[in-house]
């Protein structure tokens, strides 16, 4: 009788094979965060979206050096110039070699429609390079520079990868700069909603009773006022004379005035279900203070939900900012946000001749889609059993 079978006989053998047992012990030993991370990693779409979101935020932060031009650099002679194709190789008489470049424009006048139109001119080669000198900018007010990640090697040459707008400004550069306002307004607005939502939702769920009913009625009433008309009313109250930064914060506050209700509901629901959980009851019996119970015992147990709900609230904010700025009640030029930029596309005739003005709209879509997938993935990872 071998010793292996001996142990098997003496104690009931593990009902699970070694591989599964090993995995289970690994799971049992892992912290909650680690578990969430593992589950999230398996969500390939959400993971990829997370990387996209991160990339967008990096681009937004580093907009000045990344964008080839500044937002206001206009070249009126290139009004509605179409996008240029980036060529990586150049063919010359001695064969072809690596030399990234774009082609310049030639103006053609259609004699019948009396319309100017641009065609690319194969003879004008505009070399393009990395880390080139261009428009001066002040990076986040920290230092000044004129270095750009990429652009025409000779500053001042036309370089419109996504075409030009009404005033001959680079749509790509403006869209990159627009990310800064649009993406940060989503984030800042959500953080504000989060603060209000967690406090009020927490009070509502933890205290219950009269406080709970009062907060719940408030939420119901706020939710039954159509949001955009209410926002329009509030945004119209922001004086036109304010500094753009003040307008930015005012709009953010306005958006989060309504956004908090969703988060408050989630937090309240969680608090209600946690209130009678053993670990909370035992903390209470131990004589822990209410603040301590809420901060130390209850909140950490659903950080993950809050993070997921917050991620899912950012796209709503971005879409709302776009709508408000588009109709002219939110941010105003010279501030650039995706909504402000889309306003350029409002005229259907200019849109028909310059469809690349949709670019900021596509940027909104990419941002909203990747944030939604990321949020969905986080929610699934935080609570695999939730429907």
């Amino acid at each position, binding site marked *: 009788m071998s010793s292996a079978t001996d142990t098997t006989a003496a104690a009931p053998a593990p009902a699970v094979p070694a591989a599964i047992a090993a995995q289970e012990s690994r799971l049992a030993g892992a912290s909650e965060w680690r578990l969430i991370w593992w589950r999230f990693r398996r969500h390939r779409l959400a993971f990829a979206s997370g990387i996209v979101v991160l990339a967008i935020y990096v681009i937004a932060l580093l907009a000045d050096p990344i964008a080839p031009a500044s937002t206001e650099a206009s070249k009126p002679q290139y009004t509605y110039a179409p996008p240029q194709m980036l060529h990586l190789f150049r063919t010359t008489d001695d064969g072809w070699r690596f030399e990234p470049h774009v082609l310049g424009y030639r103006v053609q006048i259609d004699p019948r429609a009396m319309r100017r139109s641009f065609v690319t001119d194969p003879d004008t080669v505009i070399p393009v390079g990395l880390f080139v000198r261009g428009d001066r900018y002040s990076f986040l007010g920290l230092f000044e520079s004129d270095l750009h990640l990429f652009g025409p090697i000779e500053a001042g040459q036309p370089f419109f990868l996504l075409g030009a707008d009404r005033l001959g400004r680079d749509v790509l550069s403006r869209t990159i700069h627009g990310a800064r306002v649009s993406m940060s307004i989503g984030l800042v607005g959500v953080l504000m909603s989060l603060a209000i939502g967690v406090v009020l939702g927490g009070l509502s769920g933890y205290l219950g009773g009269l406080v709970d009913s009062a907060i719940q009625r408030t939420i*119901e*009433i706020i*939710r*039954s*006022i*159509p*949001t*955009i*008309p*209410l926002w*329009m*009313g*509030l945004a*119209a*109250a922001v*004086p036109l004379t304010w500094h753009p930064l003040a307008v930015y914060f005012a709009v953010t506050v306005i958006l989060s005035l309504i956004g908090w209700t969703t988060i408050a509901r989630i937090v309240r629901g969680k608090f209600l279900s946690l209130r009678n959980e053993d670990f909370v009851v035992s903390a209470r019996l131990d004589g822990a203070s209410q603040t301590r119970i809420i901060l130390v015992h209850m909140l950490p147990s659903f950080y993950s939900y809050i993070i997921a709900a917050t991620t899912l609230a950012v*796209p709503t904010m971005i*879409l709302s900012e*776009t*709508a408000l700025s*588009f*109709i*002219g*009640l939110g941010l105003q030029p010279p501030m650039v946000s995706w*909504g402000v930029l*889309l306003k350029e*596309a*409002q005229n*259907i*005739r200019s*849109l*028909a001749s310059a*469809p690349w003005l*949709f670019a900021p*709209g596509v940027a*909104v*879509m990419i941002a*909203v*889609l990747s944030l*939604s*997938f990321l949020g969905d993935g986080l929610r699934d990872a935080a609570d695999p059993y939730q*429907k």
Partner: protein
Amino acid sequence: MFAFIIRRTALMVPTMLIISAIVFVVIQLPPGDFLDTLASQLASQGEGLADSQIALLRERYGLDQSILVQYLKWITNIVTALDFGQSFEWNKAVLDVIAPRFWVTLGIALLSLALTAVVAIPCGIYVSLRQYSLGDNLATFFSFLGLAVPNVLMTLVLMYASFTLFDSNPGGLFSAQYQDAPWSVGRVLDLLAHLWIPAVVLATAGTAEVVRVMRATMLDELSKPYVDTARAKGLTEARLTMKYPARIAINPIVSKLGWMIPIIVSSEAVVSIVADIPTMGPLLLRSLLAQDMYLAGAIILLLAFLTVIGTLISDILLALLDPRIRHAME
């Protein structure tokens, strides 16, 4: 049931009163009032308005009284006489300015709601029965797309498509030839040709949401034991699916539709501004910019009223559809 409807309707009254107070505060927020706007407009045109004249007008419109007094006056007139006050800019009773546009707003909202229900419910049932099929993945993809495309962008894209493909610029409500024509089949078709863009845009986001909810609820319901019971009776799959899980999965959709009304009404304002459809949306924008406060207030209030009525109807429908809720009421 009758008692429930009465009780539920009575509950609307305080809600609407609180909303009216919020709305009034909001329209009072901008510094200055309509008369300041008017004065500066006239001044820019080279015509001056004497301070005494302004003071006179201010007194006539009651703008010199405290906010509370103004509010009480405003709400009393609305409740007792359905008098929403005067529009400064149009120099007409607010109700007369709003009325024709109110019906367009309501029409577009109902049209898109109907479109949502007709498209989304069958889609949701289908994809739940064919989980992970091509159709399911397509529906999921379009759901996300529907949620991610900003309404303004979609309106612009549809207008762009309509302009470049059909060479038509579908702004407004009617084409020139039908503008003042009496009602006819042609006029109705012309109206629909102008309304399809807002209806499609508004229905898309809603459809995406309803398909998602319907699919999730159906998958949930399909796994319930009562489905096995129905199978054990020998019913066909089609019949038992329609009678049981689909029927039960409709309930959350009905309450969802109630919550969708504020979103539709909201988005409708923006979409109509973009597509230049004469609904309350563009009127609201204009009145806000001109500080035509009673007009703006009346519009926000009416839009909120539509929402509250919408949730009321969805609550009543839900009680009619779900005997558990109905019995909990009684």
